[in-house]
Structure formats: C-alpha cells, structure tokens
C-alpha cells in the first residue's frame, strides 16, 4: 500500500505507540515527529542550516500565507518552495482553508469552496478544493514543461476540508464532515502528481464518535498515503481531545502515517504518541519563545520573570543545545522581548527541545520492545541505560518531571490507561518530606 512518494515502515511498537521510518521524496524521517511551522517560507529567526543541525525533518508551510506573498505562481517560477527557501529536507503544506476561516472575518464555506474577502483588494474570492491542490502541488520534482499548472511542491499536501470549531455543536458538524468527504474526491481528482506528492485526507466530525467513525471509514476507503486528525486543539476539553485521537488512531490503517494537526504542547505529543499518532505541528514553541518563555522538562520557564536577572544557571541544565551550553538565564533575561536575539535564541532552544522529544519518543519505543530477559545478558550499566529509555519509563520520567507532586491530570491518566502504559508510579504523590 506504499505509494511511490511515501514509504512508512514501522520499526518498533509499544502497545499502541509506534516508531516508524517515513520515507518522503526529500527526506527519510523518523516518527513520532514534530514539524515546526514555517508560515511564510521561514521558521521565525532560524536559518535552514540551524534547523538541519537541530534535527528538523519536515517543515510546515502555510498555503494561505504563501499564496498571498510571494504567491504560489512566483514560488513555482523560482523552482518550488524547497528551492525558494533552500530547504533540502521534507515539506508539508496545509490546504489554506483553516487559515482563512481562522484569520478572516468574512470567510464563508459553501459547497463549492471557501469564499472570502481578499485581504489585498477586498474583492470576494473563492478557494475550491481544486484550487487548493493546484496551489500546493509543485513542479520542483517535475522535468516536464507541461507541468506548469502546479505550484508549491511540498512532499505532503493536505486536502481542503470543511473546518468548524470543535466547540460548535449541532448539525453543522455533520454537514462539515460529509462535505469534507465530498471534497476529498475533488482533491484526489485534481491531484495530478500522486507519485511525487502525498495527499493526506483529514478526519473531521467534531467530538462526535459516530461522525468521526463515518469520516475515518470514508477516508480509508479512498486509500490515501496518510491521514490527519483535524478539528482539534481548538479549545475543546482535554478529555474529549484524547478520546477523539484514541478513536481515530485505533480505526486508521496500521501501515499509514497519522498526523494530529495543530498539536501541540509537549504533554499532548507524548499522550498522542502513546495512543499511536505519528506526526504533529504547532506554532507554540516559536511563538512562546518570542514572548520569552522556554520549554523545559518541568513545563515552562518564563525568562521574563525578574528572578531570572541573577540566575546564572542554563535555561535548561539538562539540555545539550547551543543556547543551554552557552548562556545563563540572566543573560537571556536581559535579551528577551527587547532584542531580536532573545527570540532567536529561545526559538532555537524550544525547537531543539521539541525535536529532542520526538527523537526520544522514537528511540524509546524501539528500545522498549526489547524483551526484558535480553537485559539480563547485558552489563548492569547498559541494562540500566536501556531501562531508562524504554518507552513506558520514558513516559513516566517525562510526567514525573512535569508533575513532581504527582498531580498528573486526570485526562492524561485516562489516556495512558487506554494506551496501556502504567504510570501509577508517577501518579502517586511523593511524601511531603521531599518537598
């Protein structure tokens, strides 16, 4: 079932969690993976060589923003998005629909597509599923002059879906789900280069398990190279969130990648990975960096806080990134929110943190399948090391650092139970003498 443009090989499993190798036209990547968001053809404040250095495998580009500036026509003329931004590894572009609905006040969805007012001249515009595909599909891999109708050229492109807020209820959810299914056929029909670019379908259906189920089944019938779980991280409660993810990952095919869109926080990624999801994207690490917040194993560290002014420790003493190896919290404190360098350095650290988290999830899932008796034949040191990286130990360690008082949120406990991961050791509150 592997199309020419994508190969997905599962290298290891721990219950529902999986670690895989995802081979794309521009890069062989390892899942679970986090994709930094490069909205306008750049990740804010980082060079592409820095991104390679910290292990970024796939960058997400926003079709809506790129279409506004510099336009997909120009990107195409200059050789596609890879060449334009000089990114040798993989790219994923969204359909543009979500951005329109969330950014434009006057966006409206009809059967034909998304109608909106042009932010350039105010004229009414229409984005159909066909338009979205045409914008996203590029010529950078194509040697034929006849391929001119195609544009940006990412390794993975997303189908245009009918996005509704998860907090909305009622018949609109059902309408959106069925429309998403009708539109996927128009997207498939418009996609001229399935052997070079992978079209992912998006599961919609709000928080309704019945609708989600219909949507998953409908999409799976179309045999797409990969699937996304959409409509989440829009303000729904966490317990509903993980249940939708758990339902979809259980119903989606084993041998295809699963991408949870717009997720997320480190904790969300750990939970979703335990439930069998593979790919994530979020602007949070870079956005929060610009406001002076660092991601650390304990959660977050606000470098803007006055207490940082004389703190001579690294941002995260356990982090091996360039920023943590070199700089003190005090110095970063005097940069953040005032100087460009502050957000550059914190973005670097935050993305490093997310990518390291992805790598740790990947390797702990693979090592986690080693039968325990194997450890008996190894030296104590190595056995101890292996144990410390086994997936469930990794998850426990992660939760222990983030919730040192043992106050792991209930939704996480519930999700982990479904994922088959015993986290009882970190849920039990420590004795107060340790505080």
């Amino acid at each position, binding site marked *: 079932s592997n199309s020419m443009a994508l190969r997905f090989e599962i290298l290891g499993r721990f219950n529902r969690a999986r670690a895989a190798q995802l081979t794309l036209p521009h890069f062989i990547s390892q899942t679970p993976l986090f994709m930094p968001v490069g909205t*306008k053809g750049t990740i804010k*404040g980082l060079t592409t060589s820095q991104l390679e250095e910290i292990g970024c495998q796939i960058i997400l580009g926003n079709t809506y923003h790129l279409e506004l*500036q510099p336009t997909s026509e120009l990107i195409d003329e200059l050789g596609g998005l890879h060449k334009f931004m000089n990114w040798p590894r993989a790219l994923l572009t969204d359909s543009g629909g979500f951005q329109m609905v969330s950014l434009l006040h006057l966006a409206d969805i009809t059967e034909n597509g998304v109608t909106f007012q042009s932010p350039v001249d105010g004229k009414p515009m229409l984005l159909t599923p066909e338009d979205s595909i045409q914008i996203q599909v590029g010529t950078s891999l194509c040697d034929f002059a006849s391929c001119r109708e195609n544009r940006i050229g990412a390794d993975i492109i997303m189908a245009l879906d009918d996005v509704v807020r998860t907090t909305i209820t009622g018949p609109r959810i059902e309408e959106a789900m069925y429309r998403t299914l009708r539109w996927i056929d128009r997207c498939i029909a418009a996609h001229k280069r399935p052997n070079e670019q992978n079209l992912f379908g998006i599961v919609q259906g709000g928080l309704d398990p019945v609708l989600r189920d219909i949507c998953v089944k409908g999409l799976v019938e179309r045999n797409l190279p990969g699937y996304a779980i959409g409509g989440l991280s829009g303000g729904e409660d966490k317990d509903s969130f993980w249940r939708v993810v758990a339902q979809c990952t259980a119903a989606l095919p084993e041998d295809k990648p699963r991408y949870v869109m717009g997720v997320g926080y480190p904790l969300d990624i750990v939970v979703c990975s335990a439930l069998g999801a593979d790919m994530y994207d979020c602007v949070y690490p870079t956005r929060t960096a610009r406001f002076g917040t660092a991601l650390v194993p304990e959660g977050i560290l606000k470098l803007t806080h006055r207490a940082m*002014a004389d703190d001579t420790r690294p941002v995260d003493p356990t982090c091996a990134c360039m920023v943590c190896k070199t*700089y*003190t919290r005090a110095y970063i*404190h*005097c940069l953040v929110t*005032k*100087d460009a360098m502050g957000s550059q350095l914190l973005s670097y650290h935050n993305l490093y943190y997310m990518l390291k988290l992805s790598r740790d999830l990947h390797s702990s899932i693979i090592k986690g399948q080693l039968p325990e008796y194997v450890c008996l034949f190894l030296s104590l040191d190595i056995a101890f090391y292996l144990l410390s990286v086994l997936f469930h130990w990794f998850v426990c360690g992660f939760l222990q650092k983030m919730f040192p008082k043992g106050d792991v949120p209930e939704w996480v406990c519930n999700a982990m139970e479904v994922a088959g991961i015993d986290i009882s050791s970190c849920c039990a509150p420590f004795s107060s003498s340790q505080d």
Partner: protein
Amino acid sequence: MRRFFGLKNPKNQRQRCTAEREREREREREREMKFAVKAWSKGRARAGVLQFVVGSSSSRSNSPSHPTEIEIETPALLLSTRKGLPFFISPDLLPSLPSDSHLLQFSPLHFLEGITPETISAIGGLHEMLGLHEYGFAAVPRDSIVCLPHCDGTNKLGASFETPFGRILIKPSEYIKFISSMKPNSWTTLADEVPAWVSEKRNKTSVDRTVRWLDDCIALSSKGGNIFGAIVGGSSVEERRRSAQEVAKRNVSGYWIGGFGLGESMDDRSPLLNAVTDCLPEQKPRQICGLGLPEEVLQGIDSGVDLFDASYIYNLTAGGFALTFPLERIVRNVSDSQLSNKGSDGTKINLNDAVYRKDNSPIVDGCRCYSCQNHTKAYISHLLNVNEMLALILLEIHNTHHYLGFFRAIREAIKGGKFEEFRNHFIEDSCDHVFATALSA
C-alpha cells in the same frame, strides 16, 4: 583536631596572597594588547597588527583552558553588537564569517537594565557570559545606534547619553564598575562629546572634562587593562590637538577618537583628524567612532586611523540594503548589468525594491558568505516584504562579510603602497555610477 586544621594560618595566607598577586600580574601581562605598524602607504595610512590574548582561567565547563592569542590586522572593522552579540547573527553562525571578524565592540550602557554588574561578575565577565572565548571585546560607551552622547545633559559629574532606557548620566566610578565586571580586552574612557556647532567655550570644557575623566578612570581601574584614552575637541583644530596631546602624555594602550559624525562636514573632517593623529605616538592603535560609510572609512584611514565600528552595517541591514560594490578590483567602468539595477547606487542595492522579486541569483555572484552561498535575492526580498527576521539575519551576514572584505582590500592596498589610488578609484567609481544612472534615467 578538626578545629585546628580549620584555623587560618596568617603566615600561609600572606604567602598565598603574594602568590595570587603574582599570578594576577602574570595574567595581566598576558592580557596586555600589543600593536605594531607593519606598513605605511604614502601619507598617514598604515597597516598594522593588533594582538591580544583571550581565554579566561575560569572553571566553567566550556571555556578553553589555554589562553589563545588573537591577531587582527588593521585597519580593521569592529563588529557592532547589542548586549555583546551581533544584532541578528546568532553565535553559532558567527564562525561562518572570516577570521578577521573576531573583534567585537559593545556598549556597557546596554546592560543598564536586566542584569547587574554583580551578576556579570559572577558569571565571569563578558567572554564567559557570551560564550565567545575566541573573540576580542572593545568597550565604548556610545554605540552610535541607540546609545548616543547627549551634550546638554553632560555635566562635571559625568557624561549623559540618550539610551533605550531614557536619558542617563554616567559617572566615571559607575562606568568603571561596569568595566571591571565585564573584563573587556580594551575599553574607552568616558568622553564629553559635543556636536560640531557648540561654542568655543563649551568645546574647551569638553576637552578639560574628558582629560579629567581619563585620569579618574585610570586611577579608579585597579587592574589597568587596555585603556583607550578618549580624544575630543569638536570642530576646532586647536582643541583637537590639545586633547590629543593631553591623552598622549598618559599611560594608555591606545586612543579613541570621539566627537565625529556629530554634524561636522566631510570637508572639515580631514584637518581635524590629521591634527589628532599627528600628536599621537605611532606604535599605538587608534580607534574611531562615527565614521561608517565606505568613503568615511577611507577618509579615516587616510588620516592614520586603525579601528572602525560597524554601525553602518546595522543601518544598511535595518533598511533592507545589501552591499554590492566590487572588492577584488575597483573597476573604473561600470558594467552594464549594474546600470540596469534599479535601487542601486553602485555600492549597495535595496532588496525592498520590486526588481528583485524574481531574482534567483545571490546578492553578489561569487560571494563566499553564508547568505550568498544559500539564498537568492528573491528569497531575501520576500522575507523583507513579509517582515521576517531571517531577512535581517541574512543581510547582516552578507553585509558584515562584504565590509570585512572591503577592509581586507584596503590593507592590501596599503601594503602595496597603493592606498591613495585605491581610495581615488573607489570614490571616482561611486561618482561615475551616480552620474551614469542620472544620465540613463
């Protein structure tokens, strides 16, 4: 028994102190800056070598244990920084610049807020705080960008500056406190810089104050270090000479010429500069502030100045400009391709200009900088258009790289005894171009 061992032995302690003082003196000698003029072109232009030792003996994990000697050929460009780091080039990208980029200028005033001198001291000084152990740091109170001298606010107690934190008055004692916490490789004494138009009386006062602050600074700085004595004197040749002569009498490692770029005309400048440099001993480096444009740098070098700041690079970068003038050879005839470039004056281009929207070539063909090796004008133009920070990173890298190349070409010209020709060609070439564009328009 335990208590007995815990007791301090006063005699041992004294010995330890003497040994420590000896080691301290040894370190001081190591930190001393050396400078030698190696070649003269006709006139005052000179090429030299500045040597200094970097690498602290602190115990933090990633500092090099052995002090390293850095050699910088002059005339040299000191990279401008904000809080010790380049504006947009992050430290991991710095090594992509040529090795003559290892001299950085910073303003201690940038640290007036957010971090205290005590914390900087606790971290181990500026090199330690920035993780730049193989770089030399030159402290200068004003940065010519956001910290500027404020003549009216300055009084006998201290120098006044306009800063991002508002208008502030810095006394020599406060300034020294910052300097001793930061431990730069060289530092400039406080100056009362005045604009070109002030009265003769005000100008005289500024020279007197600057000399007095020099003495205060020397007296207050316990460990010596490499002091660059500030020279002022506004637009009066006599006062410039008096200021230079006074500073030349003091025991300093180099000279810092202030008060330029404050309203004087380019024509008035050379006699003022010459009056200063003629009073200074030849074998010590001369640093200047306020001369940034290529033709201003050439003018300074013509008067015997050795070290320049790079605030010009910041201004170019912030405005979306990229330097493009030829470096290898200053060509007399402007090529056709240059003529067709809109938004260009022959030395630089503005990437905000729509003509670069579809330009798939690097800023300068054959440029070895990171930006030109990896990105096109079209991409940088797009990044500027959508206000992305990466535009400024790439432009600062290219412009710094290019300007360092300009200084290298100047040094070669001086060594070959051809500085005057180089300067004339450069200026003619820029003028030719302006003329040619005017005709073709």
